[in-house]
């Protein structure tokens, strides 16, 4: 750990001039170049290691089954083809993979709409309105961040079962419309607290009520927080497995992760190629999202402590 830290710090042996602010360029140019080259070699080697599983997954999805397991494990193959994807697109049990895609999309879009609406409205109350009980509820909201959600799944299931809502999307979406993902509420509260209070004061003097202030002042200014919330709630919903596993029974309603499990169960590892191709398909939207919104995603994590 400590050896890795050295490149980032100035040479300890140099009797540096007593300039307290910036490091004077005391190193020679060649020494700098060598250091920078070593840094890039080390960093690229690490990147290759970390991204290897992803690369292996992608190349394997184009390989014939005979080349995935066994002695032939090179990333490259001379027999790349789309055959696995053709098999994967056929789907399982008479349901086409396109249906699973649509289902995942409906759930993810529903999650984004619900979360953005409910989290921003609730966050406005926490961040911008003074009312008795606010501190208490805010503390409770923070506490739910740390609460293992397993404690609620059993009673929730019982209730939804008694309401006849099992095997519908209601149990999967209702929480999104009720700001149940406290992380997003917290994120937006933090963001709104960063906006100057003079904004509301001025608007109030002009006679604007909370609805106006929220709708025409806060929401437009909150765009960055709304975008990170949308991206993360989309991806979390897209990857969610436990929720659909608990609530959905008919394959026609399955989103991709559940369909993948069914696929694994039914083919029992006999068709590795198609299985991996379907895994790639299931991750494709997430990867596209990542490539397009990279900046937002990584910034969101670094400034708001969001998890992946």
């Amino acid at each position, binding site marked *: *750990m400590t050896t890795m*830290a050295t490149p*980032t*710090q100035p040479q*300890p042996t*140099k009797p*540096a001039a*007593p300039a307290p*602010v910036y490091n004077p360029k005391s190193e020679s140019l060649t020494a700098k170049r060598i250091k*920078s080259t070593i840094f*890039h070699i080390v*960093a690229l080697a*690490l*990147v290759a290691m970390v991204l290897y*599983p992803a690369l*292996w*997954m992608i190349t*394997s999805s184009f390989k014939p089954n005979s080349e*995935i*397991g066994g*002695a032939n*494990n090179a990333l490259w193959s001379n027999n790349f083809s789309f055959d696995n994807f053709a098999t994967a697109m056929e789907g399982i049990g008479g349901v086409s993979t396109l249906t699973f895609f649509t289902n995942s999309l409906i759930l993810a879009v529903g999650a984004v709409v619900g979360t953005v609406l409910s989290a921003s*409205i*609730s966050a406005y*109350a*926490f961040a911008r*309105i003074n*009312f*008795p009980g606010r*501190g208490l*509820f805010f*503390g409770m*909201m923070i506490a*739910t961040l*740390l609460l*293992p959600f397993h404690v*609620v799944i*059993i*009673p929730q*299931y*019982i209730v939804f*079962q008694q309401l006849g809502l099992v095997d519908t999307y209601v149990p999967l979406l209702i*929480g999104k419309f009720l700001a*149940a993902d406290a992380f997003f509420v917290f994120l937006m509260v933090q963001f709104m*607290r960063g906006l100057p209070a003079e904004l509301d004061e001025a608007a109030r003097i002009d006679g604007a009520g*909370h609805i106006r202030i929220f709708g025409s002042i806060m929401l437009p200014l909150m765009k960055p927080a709304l975008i990170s919330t949308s991206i993360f709630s989309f991806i979390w919903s897209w*990857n969610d*497995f436990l929720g659909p596993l608990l609530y959905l029974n008919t394959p026609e309603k399955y989103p991709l992760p559940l369909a993948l499990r069914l696929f*694994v169960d039914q083919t029992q590892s006999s068709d590795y190629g198609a299985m*991996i191709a379907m*895994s790639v398909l299931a991750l494709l939207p*997430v*990867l596209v999202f990542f490539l397009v919104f*990279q900046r937002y*995603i990584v910034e969101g*994590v*670094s400034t708001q*402590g969001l*998890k*992946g």
Partner: protein
Amino acid sequence: MTQSPTLSRRAASAPTPPRKSRRRGADTRAGYTFLLPWLLGFIALTVGPMISSLYLSFTNYNLFDAPKWIGFDNYTTLFQDERFLQSVGVTMQYVVFGTPLKLAAALAIAMLLNSKRKGQGFYRSAFYAPSLIGASVSIAIVWKAMFGDSGPVDQGLSFFGINLGGWVGNPNMTMGMMILLTVWQFGAPMVIFLAGLKQIPADLYEAASMDGAGPVRKFMNITWPMLSPVIFFNLLMETIHAFQIFASAYIISNGEGGPAGSTLFYTLYLYLRGFSDFRMGYASAMAWLLVIVVGIITLIFFKTSKSWVHYSGDAK
């Protein structure tokens, strides 16, 4: 620090500016109106279910007949249930080894990347990518294939003369495989560390250099204390997160927790008890025990944090 590590302290405050009392009533009404979505969800989806699962944990309930009160029986049975004890062991191993390793990797790489060199954005994104997909079913399938008999991991190790065979079927190796899967997702805490490292003023290191401090002393005396709020935040969140691993364990073991119970994680056992044996009371007791344990760990973290977490921002 500017970001989320302040979560505990910011909760309470925000001074109330003096306001006219006429507006106060209107504000109260508006406050609760805007809070309504969250409040409804909080009551209907969190508090209500928590209370009823507490009640259920003292009953025998199979979803079809009425719950039957049995007192503490579920809790006492738990500690004689070998599968339960095994699931506790498996989960503890995973939390105790996986989380520190993941954070060590995250901190090491963050320190490596913390410079003004070109390509930082690329490296940061590349290392972060696994965090986004690591917990998905797709990656669990890939992980299983990679660590299977004569999969790439087996082949690669054989090349160095290490013949372990497939990890998936070997109860001694599955934990290693699961820990590698979580360590692989070091990117999210790394990005948070990196943001923290950037807040440490460079002149601290310069002053230390002039005093002849080496890299180890600089790490111990500057990096670690200055970064401690971020380390604390990451440690707390990652630990709580680790307790809740589910999808990867479910897929890798075909929903059974095998081989020989070596991937029978706590949540997986809870799921099997509740939703395939329909022993809802028993599963509720397990859920409450998890809440209590996580609560105690959080409390210990916060209590001990006073001795090693320094909020430098307080002085300013």
